[in-house]
């Protein structure tokens, strides 16, 4: 039987495919499904490439969705058995070792979407349960207070989604560039002149300009040593969210050495980005040499990244293998090179936290803000703390010296 682009079977499959994409997070509604059907009927299904491009052109409207579409397409339209094998591979603990190395790595989101599709297709009576919005909200409330270190896999997924929407308001600083404003401080001669030509003899109104405001560059230095390991994945999601949220964000991670992961994080798709970061960083969950890492940052990167009133976020528990040796010197240089130094410490969640370890005592005198960072609520607090007007204690360096 030759395939026919008008067969109801195909329509069903296309709709099914659209639903999977929607579950995986692509903004594709029923209207898109209709468009997709129309497109498929227009190009026919003789050529796989045509078919793929037709679906892609209708269902993908942003470059960062392309990756997900490609993977979903490959899985869905290649081999009907592949999906099952894929699902089997996702459950290795139950079915034993069935997953083989040939299987492509699917992002968790897509896998989840595929599983749901499979389940609802399998059982007729199992109706799809719409998630109650109120319930989701209350779940969120609980999640927000939970420590990153003690979350189940499903909770993690939800947190990832929340992190993806986290915005980080930095204080805006006035720059030398100006914009037209009714109550500006400087006279806009050019606009006034145009007004004068128009007024021709009458009194010409003065036009004004005022200074523009801009967010300063943000540099994040994130500790990924063994003691920070349980927060590391969350923090990477956080880094990905803020790197893609705004311009001029640079992210570097350190354990025993320093790695700049800004370019790796630039990929819009969070799974691809984290994949690249993982392969680029050589010292996951190892020791910490904060002093040496900061020294490397100061020497190699500070002059390139800390211009234009940059704000530095240092994410570390301050537990240093070198016991703070040479740390105060590097911290002072770092603090002097940036406009604001914010230290985020997950250990701060313990109410009885004292700055005992040598590393922490060496670092504390030089930071402008010292904040906890162990759960979502603390990340939200961070946003609030950053929004507060930056102020530098004049006595900070004098006191430290």
């Amino acid at each position, binding site marked *: 039987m030759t395939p026919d682009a008008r067969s109801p079977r195909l329509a069903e499959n296309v709709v099914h495919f659209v639903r999977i994409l929607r579950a995986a997070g692509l903004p594709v509604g029923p209207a898109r499904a209709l468009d997709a059907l129309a497109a498929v009927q227009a190009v026919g299904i003789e050529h796989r490439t045509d078919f793929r491009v037709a679906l892609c052109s209708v269902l993908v409207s942003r470059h960062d969705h392309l990756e997900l579409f490609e993977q979903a397409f490959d899985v869905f339209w290649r081999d009907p058995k592949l999906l099952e094998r894929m699902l089997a591979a996702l459950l290795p603990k139950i079915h034993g070792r069935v997953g083989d190395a040939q299987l492509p790595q699917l992002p968790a989101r897509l896998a989840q979407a595929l599983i749901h599709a499979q389940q609802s297709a399998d059982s007729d009576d199992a109706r799809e349960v719409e998630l109650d919005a109120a319930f989701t909200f209350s779940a969120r409330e609980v999640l927000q207070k939970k420590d990153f270190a003690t979350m189940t896999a499903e909770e993690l997924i939800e947190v990832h989604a929340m992190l993806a929407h986290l915005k980080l308001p930095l204080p805006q600083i006035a*720059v030398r*560039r*100006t914009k037209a404003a009714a109550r500006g401080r400087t006279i806009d001669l*050019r606009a006034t*002149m145009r007004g*004068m030509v128009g007024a*021709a*003899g009458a009194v010409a109104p003065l036009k004004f300009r005022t200074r523009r405001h801009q967010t300063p560059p943000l540099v994040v230095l994130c500790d990924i040593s063994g003691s920070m390991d349980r927060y590391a994945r969350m923090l990477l999601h956080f880094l990905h969210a803020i790197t893609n949220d705004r311009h001029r964000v640079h992210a570097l991670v350190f354990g025993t050495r320093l790695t700049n992961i800004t370019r790796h994080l630039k990929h819009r798709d969070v799974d691809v980005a984290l994949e690249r970061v993982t392969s680029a960083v050589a010292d996951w969950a190892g020791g910490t040499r904060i002093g040496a890492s900061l020294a490397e940052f100061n020497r190699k990167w500070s*002059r*390139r990244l800390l211009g234009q009133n940059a704000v530095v976020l240092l994410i570390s528990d301050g537990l240093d293998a070198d016991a703070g040796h040479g740390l105060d010197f590097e911290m002072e240089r770092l603090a002097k090179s940036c406009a604001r130094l914010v230290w985020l410490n997950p250990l701060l969640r313990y109410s009885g936290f004292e700055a005992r370890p040598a590393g922490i005592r060496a670092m504390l005198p030089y930071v402008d803000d010292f904040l906890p960072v162990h759960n979502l609520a603390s990340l939200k607090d961070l946003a609030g703390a950053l929004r507060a007007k930056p102020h530098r204690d004049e006595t900070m360096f004098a006191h430290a010296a």
Partner: protein
Amino acid sequence: MSPIAHPATVDATLDLLERQDYIADRRLATAVFLSLRMARPLFLEGEAGVGKTEIAKVLAAGLGRRMVRLQCYEGLDTAAAVYEWNYPRQMIEIRLAEAAGGVERSELTHDIFTTRFLLKRPLLQALAPEDGIAPVLLIDELDRTDEPFEAYLLEVLSEYQVTIPELGSVRAQEPPIVVVTSNRTREIHDAIKRRCLYHWVDYPDARRELAIIRRKCPQAAESLAREVVAFTQRLRSMDLFKAPGIAETLDWAEALMALDRVALDPQTVADTLGVLLKYQDDLARLTPDVATVLVAEAKAEGIRL
């Protein structure tokens, strides 16, 4: 001043630079040669004080062209970089027209937005030179300005034209020779780099640095020149926060000459180190003991240079 023809080979470029007392390595000469031959802007990046700006000056002198310099800074806008209307003159013109009476509004607009009232800033000067000879345009320290200005430069660097809303586009008859420099205090956008030939200007090696000192400070004693070069080369390998550039080496050589020294000694080094190193942390690392060792090594190495 009449323009001199562009060098025909890399060797000719090396000669041209050397005639202007600029001792370049072959890679830099090749980049300059290609930039002239392909009429593409030359993007020079490197640490402060390695002679990036000097290239533009030397090219201007060597090719018999004027140099137009645009020093970048934060908030640089079209009024400072490209053109500005001469507002006082325009105002007078309007008052005069009103006093005479009977001037049409549209005619007045037409009259006051003409080249007569236009103040040319560096970019426009470079694209529409008074003498008709394309100058050397130096866009210095581009990293100090912000992204919007970079974006503006894209049109200038690829089309060699600027647009003035009241007048229309001004296009260069002959594209200027463009040299862009950056100290890399931030990364310049790829879009700019793509339009340029990129060259990383490194610190000179000992042999070339010695040649530069001989050329620029001919009065310096030969032994002093050798020791100065050996000493600064040592410093650069020391992992300092800011290693001294060739500009600092030259300054230091001149400072030592002003003090009538013909050889290095630890005390003189300690007294004049502020010429070479500009960070307190770096200065603190050069304790008298370290300086003594370095001077001894520099003396031994200086002879072998």
